[in-house]
Every structure is written in C-alpha cells, then in structure tokens.
C-alpha cells in the first residue's frame, strides 16, 4: 500500500524526508501568495525547505486570491 499525504484534499504519494517545498513542487504550486499549514500548524515561508511533512499529514496550501 502506498504511503500518502493529503494536499488540499488531493491524495499524493509521500516519501521519507519529504519537505514542504517538495510537496509544493509535486503539486506544481508556483503561486507566491501561499499560506501553508501542515496538520493545522502554520509553516512560515522561510521554513518550507527544512520542514518535514510526516506520513499521513494533511497539508493545506492556501492560494490567496489575486487576479484583476
């Protein structure tokens, strides 16, 4: 059985050592105005590269509105 995490309601594969930055890359989330929560803990932007995402975590990557 695949080891997974949930990102904005989507289930994706998880791997050992996976960071917030890795998750955003997998999801192709390139928008800059992002708020990231891992299991309801807010993660600051400068902590994304080092913050490990645990197996089974619920990640919310909230894209704040822009446009027009």
């Amino acid at each position: 059985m695949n080891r997974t995490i949930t990102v904005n309601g989507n289930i994706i594969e998880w791997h050992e050592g996976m960071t917030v930055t890795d998750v955003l890359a997998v999801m192709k989330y390139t928008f800059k105005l992002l708020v990231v929560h891992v299991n309801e803990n807010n993660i600051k932007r400068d902590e994304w590269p080092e913050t490990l995402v645990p197996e089974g975590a619920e990640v919310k990557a909230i894209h704040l509105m822009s446009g027009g």
Partner: protein
Amino acid sequence: MSVAEMKSKHKTIKVWNYKAGEIMRGYNNRTLHIDLTDNLISEKPVTQLMKDKFVGGKGFGLKLLWDATKPQTKWNDPENEIVISPGPCAGITQYSGAGKSLVVSISPQTDSIMDSNVGGYFGPYMKFNGFDAIELQGKAKSDVIIILDGRTHTVTIEEAPAEAIDSHILAEQLTEMYALDDKDKINIAVVSAGKAADHTLIGMLNFSFYDPRRKLCRLKQAGRGGIGTVFRDKKIKALVAIGTGVKGNLNNVADLKAISERGQRLIKEIKAGDETQCEMRTKGTAHLMEIMNNYDLLPTKNFQFGRDDSQIAKIHSEVFKSKFTQTWKDLEGCWFGCALSCAKAVDKFELRTGPYKGEKVIVDGPEYETAAGVGSNCGIFDADHIIEVNFYCDTYGICTISFGTLTAFVMECYENGILNKERTGGLELNFGNRDAALELLHQMARGEGFGLIAGHGVRGMKKIFAEKGWGDINFMNDIGMENKGLEYSQYVSKESLAQQGGYAMTNKGPQHDEAWLIFMDMVNNQIPTFENKAEALHYFPMFRTWFGLQGFCKLPWNDIEPENNRQTAEPAKVPEHVESYVIIYNAVTGNNIDKKELIRQSERVYNFQRVFNIRRGYGLRKHDAQPYRACGPVTKEEYLSREAFYDKQLKELVNFDPAGKSTEEKMSVMRKYRENRYEQLLDAVYKRRGWTSNGVPKIEHLKEIGMDLPEVIEVVKPLQ
C-alpha cells in the same frame, strides 16, 4: 495645425458659472448635469438619502441613471446618460489606490446597466472642482468638448472641430491647450474615446493623467461594455477637468491622522513584501501570465485550453518586465500617493502597422487581461504584437478585453468554416495570425470591412452569422464567450464552478471584478459544498462592490498582504486591510460603520442594480446562463487534451465508468453533470442573496437591507 490654431476654431456654445464650494468629509453634496441636446447645465443637490442608500461612485451613477431614464430607453436614445462619480474616499492621497471613478450607462452591448471603473485624474479633479458626479445626457449636433474649469468655476461646452479623435493625440493636444505652462500640465485631466468607438459597440473611455517625469500624457481605461460608444454617439470629443493643484486634505476628512497611519502601514507592507509577492511595482498585473498558465487558467485559443507550455516563455511576465521602463518603478501610480505603483508603461515603442506606423509611442500596460486576451487567447504568443494591439485599442477607444475575446471567437469560427476568406473580406483569421488581427482592429477604426461586423461583439456576431446561414447557432452559442452580451474577461472557468457563478451571475456581465474565486474553489478546495460556494459568491461580490462606491482601487487590498496575514482565520479576505478600509471610510466621512455595515452598503447598491436590470427586462435567472465553453469541454479536441483528467472526474464524481466509451458519449455525460451543477449553484446563491429562485430580490430581503424604496418595490412586487 498648432494647438493655438485649433483653439481658435472652437465655438463657445454655453458657459455656466457656479459658486465655489467646499468638500466636507468627502462630499460636495451636489452633482453636475449637462444636457447636450439643449445645452443646459445645472447642479443637483445630493440628498442624505442618496448618501445613506447609494454612498457614492457606482451607487450615485445607478441612482442618477435610474431617475434619468425609462425602462424602454435604449443606449443611443438622447436620454441615456453617462454618469461619472468618484465616491467619498476618492482623492485622498494618504492611502494607496484612492483615485478611482466609476462610469455608468446603458450599454450598447448588453442593453442593460454597465459599470466600469477607471483610474486617472478626471474623477478626483471633478470632485475638487465641486461635484460628486457628472451626468452627460442628450446629444450634441457636432463634436464638442466640455470643460470643467476649477480656476474660474465655470463649465463650458465648446464646438471643437479641429482636434484629433484618437486618444493618444487628443489627450496631449488638450493638455497643452488648457495648461498655463508645462508645470501646470499635471492639473489637466482628459476623458476621450477614439475612432473605433465611432464604428463599434465596444468603445471605451480613456482617462488621462500627466506624467511629469516622461512629460507625456498617460491613459487609463474605463473599458467594459461600450461606454465609449455612447460617448461618441453623444458627439462628445472630450471632457476636460482643469484642477488647481492637489493638496493633502482637499476632502476635508474627519480624521486625517487615522488615514495617514493606515497609509504608512500599507506603504511599509508594499516595500517589504511586493518583491516576493506579486511584483506589482515591476510587472503590474502582467505578473499573472505564467502563473495562470501553470494552473491551466490562461485562456488559449478562445478558452479551449488553459495553457501552452511550449509558448508561454514568449509572453512570460519577465518579458514584459524587460519591456516596461523601470526607471520610475516606485512612482507609477495612476493617482497621487499610490505606493503599489502598478501603472507600468513601455516607452518609445515603435509601431509596425496602422496610421501611426513607424512612430515611437508610449503604451500604458499591457495589463494581464490585455496580454491574455489579445495574445494567448488568439493563439498569438508575441509580446510586441500584444503591446501594439494594446496601443491601438487604447488610442482607437475600444476595450482590449472585448477585442481579445471577440477576435478569439472569430478565429475559432474561421477554423471551423463558419467564416472564410470570402466572408471576412480577405482576412485569414486563423489562430495565431497577428497581421490579420491587427488589420481587423484597423478596420474597426476606419469603419470598414469585416471590422464593422466584428465590432458588434460576440453576441451580435452570433446573430449575424446565424442569419446569414454561415454556422450552427448552437455551436456558436457554446463557443461564443459572452454572457448578457458582454465578452468574458481572461480566465478559464471550466474547472471552478464558483468562478462560473462569479462570471455569469454578475450584474453587468462576465467581468472578474465581482469575484475571483478560482484558487479558493479549484486549487484550495476551501469551498466544496454549494452552500460554501454560495457564501463566497455573496461575500466577495459585495466586498468588491464596495471599492466602486468609495473611489478605491481593489489591487492594494489583495495584491499585497501583511506578513501576519497567514496567521489569520480567513487570510483570503485579508482582514487587516478590511479593517483599514473601515477605519478610512469612517475617518473620511465621520460615520461609524463596521465591517458588517461595509457589506450592507454594497448589498443595497448591488440589489438596486439587479432590480434596475429587472426594470429593463433583464436580471432574471435566464440571464445568468453561461456558454458551455465556460463550464466544460465543447469539442473533442478540448476533451482529449485532458482526457485522463476528465475520465477520472467521470468515474469519481459522476459515477460513470468511462472505459470503452466513445469521446462523444463521455462528453455528453460530462455536460449533463456540469450543467446540472451550475443550476444547483444558482439555487444556492439566490437563496444566500435573498432572491427568489428566478433571481429576483425578495421584498423582505430588500426591507432587511434597507433598499425598500417604493420605486424598487414596485418593480419586484409582481415577480415575488
């Protein structure tokens, strides 16, 4: 001809003197009315009821237009008006983005009520000259200019036969004509259209602001819905406001210190955050190009697709950044004091086509909407082409959004045999043909050829093509990206049900300024239920409406965010900025509203606009219908471009196994599913907004929000 010679040819038709007044807490408490048929000029008082119920800006425009017209009034009847109103907070210089005006009229494209917001100096200067709004009614016999002179406190109508029609020349001519000297040019503001507004229904208005660093006039646009066409139909060549200098507290606000404190806080945010957030100071709204492509939202080939990875590099935001002059990047506001500074411009751009071929000109923009509309949506991935079309749309006085979307529609019709070279008079309007697209634009300005037909807009063209027997009306209805007669702005809404409502449930037609919910809905999955989506389609359209009542620009609300925004309960609302707007409104007017009353102010005006449409025979559920292209894949090619994605949806959401099924069968099931969901969305949103299932505001709701004026109740009562 020199400017002095041009002026010598003016013939004064009417001079009207008025008493100088003083703005108190954001209001002059009077508006200006001009009847061009009989050359009558008068002022009207602003009543307390007007301020309480309609606030200003779009609210004043709607109220004045309602009173001035009948339900049967057509866009080109003399009694139709153009109303320009900036709002009580317009003209403050201590908070970024406070120089907007709202323009309201009966639209030649939709036959219902149009509103369009715009920067530039005319609105604030008109207000400082003594008026909270201007109504332009009637029709002149020949081309006139109207001058609002704050030095002499006069309003003058003059025949003006010699000046140019095209805006980039006319704005310069009139700025030179009415400025006392070079230093005074900053006090002149011009509103004008252009040659294509004479021949199409998609005319727009340019509002100038003089740039003392470049020593040139810049242009901002009230683009949507053909108000420039109304302007030229009235034979108005230009409006000119002559100001007497902008000072710190011309609005005589109740608490300047509170406004300054919030303004300084925002400036710090912008300086700290813009470079890592939206890069508005270096790219403007064009920063969205590759972002929209990455999320399948960039309209490509008439909204068929949401991306083109092989070509996006040619119109990447870095390309536009390199073309924008960065010398004054922190000083590019379209009103004084705006630190967001997103009014980007390309200087000394050499034109390769048209009547100004070979000239080096300044081009304001391109904004995202323009670049996506006349670029990717037409299959043209060429930054210089986009800039050239941007220039000509501006100077000819037509809307870049409508021009982009209608050209994309024409191109898809051409590729499907609905149009051909014979029917277009020789234009080979395949996707990607930039020369043909530009020639179409020049034809609109010359009033000839296929440009005249295309100038009717998407809705008009569908009717014409069907009458000529050129194509299947059902197919054209599916691919023609218009709702209520207005062309869609430039986001692919297929995968966001909430955004489909954000577009097609708008009062004026599908413009993103009411609601932009795609990320909340499609990417964040924050609003999964119909009730969630309905709540968003209540809050955000109401919140965004509020900017247009006050004279604020929306961009400093959510294109820059405070560092602690991520820690708030509802970061998408940017709570600290909402708090700032409440504080600033109270500090300008001396009133005492909270964030709930802020929404309530908008609800009154929003519902009034809905009822205004109903009074004119629109504003019902059937008018909120969307073209299927906005909702799902119309063609096999579209379906197959994301086959795995759509197949997965069929399996997981529709409980339909796509294995072994034909593409046509899968498309049919998908369509039924999506169209049904949109109907469910309408039900949910109408309920949340206090409307009947036919989209009519309920009387008890109108009473609850305080918009139960007798004339409003009279319209909705038979429809309860």
